[in-house]
C-alpha cells in the first residue's frame, strides 16, 4: 500500500514541480518592475554593458579584479532594489557549487604542482594541496560566480520580452524574435490549461490514483495539449492575417537611450578596457 501511494505521489510531485518551476521562472518579473538603477537603463545598453563585464571577467587572470567585479555586481543588485539574500541564493546554488566540485582535483599537487600549503593522508594516499592549486580553483569558482551573477542580475532586472527584443541588436531576424515572443506568451496559457486539467482530474478521482493510471493521464494530457496547440496555432495565424500580417512582421521599437545610459556605457567601457589593458 505504501509503495502505491509513493508512486502516486511521484506523478503528483512531478506535475506540480514542473508547473511551479515554469511559473516561478516565467512569472518572476516582480524585480524587473521595481524602480531601481538597472531597471531604469535602456535594455540594449544594459545588455551590452553586462556582456562587456562578462568578457572582462573571462579575460582577466587577476583574482582581485574578478572579486572587485563580483562586488560591483552585488552593489548593482543592491541599488536595483534586489533582495541580496534572494540574489545570493539564486546565484550560488547549483552552478558555482557544481563548478567547485569540478575544480576540486585542481587543488592537489598531482594536477597543479607548486608550493605546498597543506598535506594529509586519505585511504593510504598522501595528498598535497598547493598554493597555485588553491588560487586556480578560487579564480575558477569566482569567475563562474561573477558571470552567473551578472547574467542573473540582467535577467531579473529586465522583463523577459524586453530581453527578447534586445536579441535584435545581435542581428537576430525580427521573425525569429516575434516567434519567440509568441511562444513565451502561450507558455502561460498552456500552464493554465495543464493546471486546470490536473485540478479537474483531482476533483473527480480524489487524491489517490494508481501510478499506472497516473502515467496514462499524463500521456493523455500531452496528446490533448498537442492537439490544442495545433488548433491554437491555426487560429493565431488567422488573427495575425486579419490584422494585416503578410509574412514580414513589423514591431514597435520603443527603446529610448538617455544621457544616463550613455554615461553608464562609458563607465563600463572604460572599466573593461582598463581591466583588459592592465590586468590581462
Amino acid at each position, binding site marked *: 500500500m505504501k509503495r502505491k501511494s509513493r508512486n502516486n505521489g511521484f506523478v503528483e510531485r512531478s506535475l506540480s514541480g514542473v508547473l511551479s518551476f515554469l511559473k516561478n521562472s516565467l512569472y518572476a518579473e516582480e524585480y524587473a518592475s521595481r524602480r531601481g538603477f538597472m531597471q531604469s537603463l535602456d535594455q540594449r545598453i544594459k545588455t551590452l554593458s553586462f556582456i562587456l563585464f562578462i568578457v572582462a571577467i573571462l579575460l582577466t587572470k587577476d583574482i582581485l579584479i574578478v572579486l572587485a567585479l563580483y562586488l560591483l555586481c552585488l552593489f548593482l543588485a543592491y541599488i536595483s532594489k534586489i533582495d541580496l539574500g534572494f540574489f545570493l541564493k539564486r546565484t550560488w546554488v547549483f552552478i558555482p557549487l557544481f563548478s567547485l566540485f569540478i575544480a576540486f582535483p585542481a587543488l592537489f599537487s598531482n594536477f597543479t604542482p607548486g608550493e605546498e600549503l597543506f598535506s594529509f593522508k586519505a585511504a593510504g594516499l598522501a595528498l598535497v594541496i598547493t598554493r597555485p592549486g588553491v588560487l586556480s580553483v578560487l579564480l575558477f569558482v569566482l569567475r563562474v560566480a561573477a558571470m552567473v551573477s551578472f547574467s542573473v542580475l540582467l535577467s531579473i532586472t529586465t522583463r*523577459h*520580452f524586453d530581453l*527578447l527584443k534586445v536579441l535584435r541588436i545581435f542581428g537576430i531576424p525580427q521573425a525569429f524574435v516575434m516567434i519567440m*515572443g*509568441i511562444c*513565451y*506568451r*502561450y507558455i*502561460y*496559457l498552456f500552464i*493554465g490549461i495543464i493546471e486546470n486539467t490536473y485540478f479537474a482530474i483531482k476533483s473527480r478521482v480524489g487524491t489517490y490514483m494508481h501510478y499506472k493510471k497516473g502515467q496514462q493521464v499524463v500521456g493523455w494530457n500531452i496528446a490533448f495539449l498537442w492537439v490544442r496547440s495545433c488548433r*491554437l496555432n491555426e*487560429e*493565431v495565424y*488567422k*488573427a*495575425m*492575417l*486579419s*490584422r*494585416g*500580417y*503578410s509574412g514580414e*512582421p*513589423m*514591431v*514597435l521599437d*520603443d527603446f529610448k537611450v538617455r544621457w544616463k545610459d550613455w554615461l553608464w556605457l562609458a563607465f563600463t567601457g572604460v572599466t573593461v578596457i582598463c581591466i583588459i589593458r592592465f590586468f590581462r
Partner: protein
Amino acid sequence: MYNPVFSLKNVWFSYLGRFPALSGVDIDIKSGQKVSIIGANGSGKSTLLHLLDGLIFADSGEVNFFGMKLGEESFNDNEFSIDFRRKVGFVFQNPDVQLFCPTVKEDIVFGPLQLGLPKNQIQSRLEKLVFTLGIRDLLERSPNQLSIGEKRKVALASTLIIGPDILILDEPTAGLDPLTTRHIIDLLIDENISGKTIITSTHDLHIVGEVSDIVYVFGADKKIARFGDADDILNDTHLLAANNLVHIHSHRHKDKIHIHPHAHLDHHTEEHQNEKR
C-alpha cells in the same frame, strides 16, 4: 449601381470537405447597417464571420465585397489585401487567440504597424482608444495577467485602432459581467453612429435588439432559418425555441409553479413583476 458591403450567394463551406458548416447561405449587408447573426452552438456563425473576413474561402457560391469577388487569389494582390484589412476589422471569439504579443501595447499596435500606418497616427489613435476604453493601466502588462473583460476590451482596441469601416465581432460579450457588456455595447453603438457597419455573432439575446437592424437566425442545418427586423425575430419565441435560443423555464412563486419560454431578455423580469402584482 449600388453595391452592398458583403453579398453572399448560395455559399457552401465544409471543414476537411466532410463536415458541413454552411449549406447554401444568401446574405446582403449594406453599408452602415447593424447585422446580428444568431444561432445555437455549431450552427455556422463563426465560420460565416471567418468567410466575411477573408480568412477562409467558400467551397462553392459567391462572396462579394463591394461587388468584387472575394477569393484566395484576391488576397495575392498586396494592394487589395492591405485595403481590405484596413476596411474590415475582426474581433475573435477567444481573446487569447487575438492577443498573441508579449504586452498589451504591442498587441494593440500590431495591426496598424503591419498595415503601414504612420507612427504618429498610431500613437494618437492609441491615446484616444486607451482613454475611451479605460485601459491605460494595462498597456505594459502581459495579456496573461488580464481578466476576460480586460482581454475583450484590449482585443476590441487592437481592431478599432486600424480604423475599419466594417467591424465584425464574434460573440463580443460572451462571459462578461453586465457592466463590461454595457460598456462594449455602448461602444459598438457609437461606432455605428459614426458610420461603421457592425456585424455581430451572438447567442446573447439581451444585446441583439441594440446591435441589430437586421437579424439572421442560423439553424442546426447550417442554413438561414429566417432573417428580418430585430423586434420581429425576438418576439417570435417559436422560432427562437426551434433553434435552441430559448428554453422552457419552470419556477415557483409562493405556491404556484410557472412554466414558460425563457429567452434571457429584459422583458422577462417585467413579466414577473406583473405576475406579482
